[in-house]
């Protein structure tokens, strides 16, 4: 169990994180969401003890993380970077040794990881010769090569093309299967929806939503209706229970207060004309995020 209890961080007068309470079960993928400056990186840095929290306690399996447990922790910082002049192999050996591995162990792992990412030819290349996306793969390898119990990924998918995002996602899911607890941050909702069971949305250092993804969606109440019809839908704005209308080229999405409202809309539509598609769906995390964070802006 990874636990944050009443954690706050103050930089002078500025509050980066305020009263954060989280319990993250082992062997789970937990998503930390938030816009820029929401306090995600600060939260990770406090967890890793790179900076100290002003208040509260953070513990992993009941203990404070320290340099003695660094071989149990993997970290992919948001600030990407490796030694530009060093070869991939030397680099990973050095970083692996610093995580308590033996050279021979690292070498074995490097080969299997590079093959998994289909880039075995990078072994003897200098990092500066690789593209940014490929450097990121190497850095990901650096953060997992020692088989950590707890893996912290700060914006792991940013800057990757869709193919590589898939490759990386698969790797993350496999690590979970192998028993790793993974904590990752993102501002891309679809990644979080796909990977996490539990999540927390941070805004200006405060947790605005926190808990199980399904429960969050259920308790959110509001639903979406996806409609594809031949006529103009703008009249729906005036129907009771409709919160928002987003008209697209192929289909429109109507956000409604609750499930009941959908039936009223269905009737209204049937009266107007031909409806190709009418689908009631769960709210997307994106909607929840925009509303929670947007509300906090107001």
């Amino acid at each position, binding site marked *: 169990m990874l636990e944050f209890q009443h954690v706050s961080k103050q930089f002078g007068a500025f509050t980066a994180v305020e009263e954060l309470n989280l319990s993250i079960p082992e062997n789970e993928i937990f998503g930390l969401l938030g816009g820029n400056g929401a306090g995600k990186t600060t939260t990770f840095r406090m967890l890793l003890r*790179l900076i100290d929290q002003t208040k509260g306690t953070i513990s992993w399996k009941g203990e404070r993380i320290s340099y003695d447990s660094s071989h149990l922790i993997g*970290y992919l910082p948001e600030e990407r*970077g*490796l*030694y530009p002049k060093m070869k991939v192999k030397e680099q990973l050996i*050095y970083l692996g*040794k*610093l995580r308590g591995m033996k050279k021979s162990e690292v070498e074995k792992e490097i080969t299997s990881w590079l093959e998994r990412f289909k880039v075995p030819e990078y072994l003897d290349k200098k990092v500066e010769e690789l593209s940014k996306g490929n450097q990121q793969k190497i850095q990901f390898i650096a953060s997992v090569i020692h088989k950590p119990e707890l893996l912290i990924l700060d914006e792991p998918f940013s800057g990757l093309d869709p193919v590589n995002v898939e490759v990386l996602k698969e790797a993350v899911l496999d690590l979970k299967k192998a028993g790793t607890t993974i904590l990752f941050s993102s501002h891309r909702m679809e990644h979080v929806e796909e990977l996490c069971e539990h999540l927390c949305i941070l805004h200006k250092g405060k947790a605005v939503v926190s808990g199980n993804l399904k429960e969050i969606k259920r308790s959110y109440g509001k639903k979406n209706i996806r409609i594809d019809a031949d006529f103009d839908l703008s009249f729906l704005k005036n129907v009771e229970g409709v919160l928002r209308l987003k008209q697209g080229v192929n289909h429109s999405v109507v956000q409604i207060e609750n499930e009941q409202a959908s039936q009223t809309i269905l009737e209204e539509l049937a009266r107007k004309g031909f409806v190709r598609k009418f689908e009631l769906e769960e709210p997307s995390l994106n909607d929840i995020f925009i509303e929670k964070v947007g509300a906090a802006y107001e």
Partner: protein
Amino acid sequence: MNKFFIVLFQTYLNRLKSKAFIITTVMTLLLIFLITNISTIINTFDSSESDRVGVIDTGTFYSSLEKQINMMDAEIVLEKFDGTEEEAEKAIEQGELDSYLILEENEAEEPSGVYKAETVAEQVTPQVLETALQQMKNTVAAEKAGVTQEQLNQIDQPVQFEKVALEKGAKTEDELNQARVFVYVLLFVIYFSVIFYGNMVAVEVATEKSSRVMEILISSVSPVKQMFGKILGIALLGLTQYAIIIASGYLFMQMQEDSLSETGFLSFLDFSNISASLIVYAIVFFMLGYLLYATILAMVGSLVSRAEEVQQMIMPVQLLIIIAFFIAMFGLSTPSATFVTISSYIPFFSPVVMFLRVGMLSIPFWEVALSLTLLVGAIVLFGIMGAKVYRGGVLMYGKSSSLKDIGKALKLSKREQ
């Protein structure tokens, strides 16, 4: 293996394999080879270059001039020239002569001369000729005055003058001369090393920070281990480089032993009278001086966001070591000056200035001990502060860097529990 040693050896081996290290070492070895072999090299180029001087003798001094020149063992070939000046000039044009001398006898029956060459930029030959003529003039004048050659030699004999230090334990003159050279050489070595290897530490830290690999590093190794691993890794590199240089320098000298040992070009490097304790002091002050400056420079390096900013940030620190160097240079001739004494206790200056005083004077041990204590104290202080600044500094990325960021870094790394 302890992570401290992993960082240390990584830094050391990585630098050892670098082109910069190999090139500077090879260049230095080449330079040493040139210096130790310089007389051989000069001789090789000079062997055929004896100046041919034609002498137009209007008096009777030619033979005594020839005798005098031979005695002086100069690389001049005299040639009696029976002709006019025009002919002599022609001979120069045709390359038969390099220059000519009109040797005359003046009213006082003493020799005098006019030296003519294409240019008078060449100094050695006319000087030798002048000295020879002076000698001959003295002899003639002395003979006229009725002084014998023996008496003349006696007059020329230099006076016996010896300096004896009364203070017990004070250095004898021989020791002092050797100490002066030793201190002088060591001052350069310390000054150069602190700047060169200290810079290396700052650059190393700044590169890791600017390449953003730093955050991975500090999440696996504590900043203190990391910082001192680096500082000592570079120190080991420096020692390796000096070991190579000193060993090969010694080897080159051995090869040249016969020609250089006593009167040769490098005889000033005879340190046989240097006491073992001075050598120990040299090593101690050298290591401590490096540690102090490397710690400060690592701290400063951790504040830099981009590697290009390193130079501007370490400038104030370098200024300190430059001031120390100038105080020491001044102190070489006046080691007992008050401000030299005072600055030998200030940690920024003491590695060079106190070493200078130890080398040149015989100062009581407690003074050295006090200076060393202050120096070690300063190292510990900057070590603690440096580690804190390092911890916060490596997480800070700003637009411009300045020494004011030290405060910010300290705040960021503050332990709050």
